[in-house]
């Protein structure tokens, strides 16, 4: 760490003499030679741990993952990571990363389209690989994300990307893999006259929204079979829900709404259903399990929904879902910049009941399965992409999370970011001034 810092300082000092704008590091070049990491504890992502392990990869794919004793070193560039930990690159589902730079500046926001039903809208083409935020996310071990649009009843289609690319086309891991449905809120009378007076109209609106949705599903389900005079973008985009080529992500939280929305989707023949948000998932766990519906649970670091709930309800929900046999993954939906806290969300789940390796799976292999990319990602297993993180300590604990190496598809990525740069810049300023105190006390220099 110390050496690393000094190195950067020197680099910064050197670069200060020339204009520096290179805050987003260049995407790493393709893996040029086989690499073998040895001596670490390997956390595969599927619940298993291998002590004193080695992981080899070549041409972007994992060629070996197991005990160091079984590894064939010939031809590999060996990197000694003894005492460290190897993990699969973490995957963050349901995010707006790259669709927005500064939340309060409209010009930097590309996550919402007008209109209620936008299944044809594709988020991935707005994914900005040059975002200053992306490198800060990688630094903590998150290497892939699902770029997800918001708004309306159907927000659009999401894609899975990896976080080290020159442009969105390079970044794609799986394009347009699912459609995001924001389930219209159930509306209930409250006894508040001002609100209840509007309730009738709002319920009508909800009915209309659900009718339009049902019609869209009905028509899309038969769309592929028919011959069309005109191509219909919305139907074409939705059709994949009915042959299983696309997933339906239903964003909803309240228990009754989860049941209502899942039943709605099943009735219309949707094959693959994932519930996102799912604050009340525990109360409908049996239903979710019986219907084989997976959950992306948002907001582990959230307050309980109700004062009466257990104080630690959001923290222990992952454990309770696991216990109930529901397939789930975790996301961090509080902010975009906060996505780098994804490992700690898993850490909290582990602090509140979940086994540590299970907690890891909920941000790696489980996520890959839910997103339909587990053949190529999500765990450190032979044949999968070499998307790997090495940390000097437990990745899930901020006390020890310290990523020393990260590889995406075998490419060794640059862990620098704008924030490290700014830190070094000012750390260096103060150090310079300490050396030359006379110049340190000048006023109003800025």
């Amino acid at each position, binding site marked *: 760490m110390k050496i690393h810092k000094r190195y950067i300082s020197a680099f910064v000092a050197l670069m200060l003499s020339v204009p520096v704008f290179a805050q987003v590091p260049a995407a790493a070049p393709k893996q040029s030679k086989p690499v073998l990491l040895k001596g670490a504890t390997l956390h595969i992502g599927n619940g298993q741990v291998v002590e004193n392990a080695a992981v080899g990869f070549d041409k972007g794919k994992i060629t070996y993952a197991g005990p160091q004793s079984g590894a064939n070193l010939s031809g590999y560039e060996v990197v000694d990571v003894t005492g460290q930990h190897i993990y699969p690159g973490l995957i963050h589902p349901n995010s707006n990363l790259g669709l927005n730079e500064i939340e309060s500046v409209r010009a930097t926001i590309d996550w919402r389209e007008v209109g209620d039903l936008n299944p044809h809208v594709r988020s991935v083409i707005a994914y900005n690989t040059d975002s200053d935020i992306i490198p800060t996310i990688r630094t903590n071990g998150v290497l892939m994300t699902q770029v997800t649009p918001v708004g309306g009843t159907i927000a659009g289609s999401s894609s899975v990307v990896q976080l080290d690319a020159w442009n969105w086309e390079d970044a794609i891991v799986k394009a347009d893999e699912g459609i995001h449905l924001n389930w219209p809120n159930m509306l209930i009378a409250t006894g508040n006259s001002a609100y209840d007076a509007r309730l009738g109209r709002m319920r009508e609106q909800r009915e209309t929204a659900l009718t339009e949705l049902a019609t869209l599903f009905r028509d899309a389900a038969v769309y592929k079979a028919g011959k069309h005079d005109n191509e219909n973008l919305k139907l074409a985009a939705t059709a994949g829900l009915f042959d299983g080529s696309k997933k339906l992500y239903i964003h909803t939280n309240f228990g009754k709404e989860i049941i209502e929305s899942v039943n709605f989707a099943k009735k219309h023949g949707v094959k693959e259903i994932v519930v996102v948000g799912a604050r009340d998932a525990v109360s409908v766990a049996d239903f979710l399990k019986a219907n084989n519906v997976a959950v992306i649970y948002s907001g582990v670091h959230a307050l309980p929904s109700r004062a009466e709930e257990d*104080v630690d309800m959001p923290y222990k929900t992952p454990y309770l879902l696991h216990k109930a046999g529901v397939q789930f993954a975790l996301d961090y939906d509080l902010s975009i*910049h906060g996505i780098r806290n994804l490992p*700690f969300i898993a850490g909290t789940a582990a602090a509140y009941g979940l086994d540590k390796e299970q907690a890891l799976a909920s941000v790696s292999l489980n996520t890959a399965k839910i997103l339909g990319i587990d053949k190529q990602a999500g765990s450190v297993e032979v044949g999968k992409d070499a998307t790997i993180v090495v940390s000097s300590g437990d990745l899930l*604990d901020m*006390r020890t999370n310290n990523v020393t190496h990260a590889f995406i598809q075998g490419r060794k990525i640059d862990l620098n970011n704008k924030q490290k740069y700014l830190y070094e810049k000012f750390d260096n300023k103060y150090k310079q001034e300490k050396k030359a105190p006379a110049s340190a006390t000048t006023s109003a220099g*800025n």
Partner: protein
Amino acid sequence: MKKILTIAACLALGAGHVMAQETFPRNGVYDERSGLVALTNATIHTDYKTTISNATLLIRNGKVEAVGTGVKVPAGAVTIDAKGKHIYPGLVDMFTGYGMPEVKSERGGWGSPPQMESKKQGAYSWNQAIKPETNAVELFKVDKKQAEEMRKLGFGTVLAVHRDGIARGTATLVTLADNKRENEVVVLDKAAGALSFDKGSSTQDYPNSLMGSIALLRQTYLDAQWNTQNPSREQNISLTAFTAANKYPQIFEVDSKLDILRADKVGDEFGKQYIIKGGGDEYQMIKEIKASNAPIILSLNFPDAYNVEDPFDARRVPLEAMKHWEMAPANAALLNKAGVTIAFTASDLKDKKDFLPNLRKAIQYGLSEEEALKALTATPAKLLNADSKVGSLNKGMLANFIVTSGNLFAADNIILENWVQGSQYKISEVPSDYRGVYTLKMPQQPDRKLMISGTAERPELKVIGKDTVSGKITFNGNLVTLSFNKDKKSKESIRLSGWLQDKNLQGEGQLPDASTVKWTATFSEAMSQKAKSDSTKVAKAPQLGNIIYPFRAYGQNELPKQETILIKNATVWTNEKEGKLENADVLIKNGKIAKVGKNLTENGAKIVDGTGKHVTPGIIDEHSHIALNGVNEGTQSVTAEVRMADVVNSDDINIYRQLAGGVTTSQLLHGSANPIGGQSAIIKLRWGKSPEELMVENADGFIKFALGENVKQSNRNNANIRFPQSRMGVEQVFVDAFQRAKEYEQSWKTYNSLSKREKSKTPAPRRDLELDALVEILNDKRFITCHSYVQSEINMLMQVADEMGFKVNTFTHILEGYKVADKMKERGIGGSTFSDWWAYKMEVKDAIPQNAGLMNQLGVVTAINSDDAEMARRLNQEAAKSVKYAGVSEEDALKMVTLNPAKLLHLDDRMGSIKAGKDADVVLWNDNPLSIYAKPLKTFVDGIAYYDLERDEQMREELEKERMRLIQAMLNAKTGGARTQAPAMRRASVVHCEDVEHNEEESYFAH
């Protein structure tokens, strides 16, 4: 409930024009009558505690002339025999809107442009919500419909309050006679002054928070005093009127228990004991309510049961709403038992007909009938200084009384008449009771038996002949109509009509074959007593659940107590020069840390095994917005007059949740909507205690300042009117404010240096609460916490402070602190920052997670804060991020959420480290406190374990049991025919200082 015949008419018996309108000319001959009436042989309740049997009430000219057993009825008196009836004083409601105009708010919607100044024209207050010039008597109009509605409940006199604004002027006491002019029915033209915290119809921005309302009211008291002392300085009708209205009893309308305490505090400051119209939840803080000494006006508005049949829906009903449903009817009894003076009002009832049934319910729940009557007669009369006119029936008082069929509070009682100022209003008649068994005879028909049962007012008919058939029967006066089918199979009806002759019935009728018949029905026996009493069952007082503190989930009937505790063999993070001690003991005694060391012993101490566990000082959150009713008075650029301490909400569940995260002390800050915000409150998380008891004793005063996007309103639509709209303007706001403060201070210094004689000739300067706070800053008596982001503005404020001669104590947020850390260090300014937030708005695009570490490295006292109710319960983890991002040592990192914030709050002499003599604000963790895997096992505040993991588990079970009990009770109530309401969830919004408006909207959606 009895349905009784009601009669709307005022019978001009005697008293048509008693209190003659002497100044009014007549069209026609004068028709004054004395209205001399004697009601004899009655049971007269002359006041709430005195009953005279077989007595006479003599009234003349609308007043009581005599009352008692020996009253001689003079010649010329109309005599009414009231044998068997009761007479009570007419009831008094001291909080109504009777005869008042409707209050309409024309406030613009969200996003409408600000209105900085009053739209009211004339020489009035600067603020539209201050309207003490209102005199209800000038607005009052007799309203027949409202008067009749209230008379039916038994009321004869009401206080009419114009419920609009913070200072509402005077209220007028009037009778409910509606056959007279306003001139005659006004009893006291100005009976009371009226106040509230609600700005009512005011369209002006300020105040837009509860704390703003409180500040405005306090300033108005001061301004009124100043105006009285300096009559020539400013013509201000409102201030003159305010002073005038102050002479009367002051009635303060609030809607919650905490607001009662808030109002009372204002009253104490200005020597006023308010009478307070409460919200019905007073029983939840009875000790504090009693201590306020305020008489409380109670509405009898009890909530309906929630419809909890659907378990998903039932989850939305908060525990306190369920418990309040059960407890609300007991409020009056509990207050009365505690010695609080109470009066009742019918004003909040959606359906006024609920008044008497709910009053009976209050009695059923433990209030004595005598106290109930007192609360409706003598108490309001006395509080309004009208007890020589109304509230009892003594010679010379208004002839306001009610005549009832029996005991006013009995379920089967009927109010027969309500006399107001000697005018008789018939309310209802006792229906004649014809129930019994009759023998029906008709020619060419077999004899039949008529069984008339049901209730007297709704008789039911059964006809027993060859078959038994049910029929219909109605009485109207002494006329009767009945019809029934010939026999069971037949659909042909026999219809009879007749009249009452002695006890028997007779008349004519028509048979199905169209022939007419004469009939008689001879009375044979009355209905059995049992059948009668079944219709008037008295319900028993139900078993009630515990009152818990605070009154919501995780409240407790008994608060945890201070103990002597010895934690043995733990890793102790002392934050002192000893550093981290392994296998050490900590002794907690009398709320303090008594000893720290190894192998400690203490007789009688409760031993807590700390093996493998960690002990740290309690976490201190330098920047919090929990436990508040409102965060921003976001209207004016300078609102130094508002105080968070006025709006501390001790019921906030986040207090408990944060204890569960190891937090023991929080600075509750004003928001960041204006360059100079409000005064902070520093609380300890003593869950279950009152707002007053949460305050950290003898803490220094702090105040919130703010810079940047929020104060220049750059992220708001439609708000580009208020100065400042740029960082340039922000500087000028500070310079101007402190310049004014200096001049203000000088004017007081000059005045205070005058001799006594000179002082008496010189008017005192006007006291200004806003400038008072700024003067305190100039004199190092109040300290600044300034919300700040970018270096330009931080440098600006440091320079302004240097030039104007004040200090900045802490820059909070300070996300670019790493750019100016050397300058902060130079001036001894601390930094309290987020661990890793950035990119959510323009001014944080250069924020870095190494900020805290770099500031700390340069010697700035650095804290990590939350500004967020959730993150606050993981501040230990946020501190750990400085280890990760900037290589700060673990012990220094922990200090960022313990000792350093204590320093920033000037509390490090008693908090922030594990040292003998300091407050026993201590957390026991299961793991290294900087680890994600760590959680508090116990959190002590003042040596009291306000959070205990084991007890928490137990409380969860108890909570679930209590909810199930209440759900069952509600289901039973519904089955029993009680009204229900839809389950609604009030979701308290979690506030950040970004939230510009005080916003506690309910969330109506399903989750």
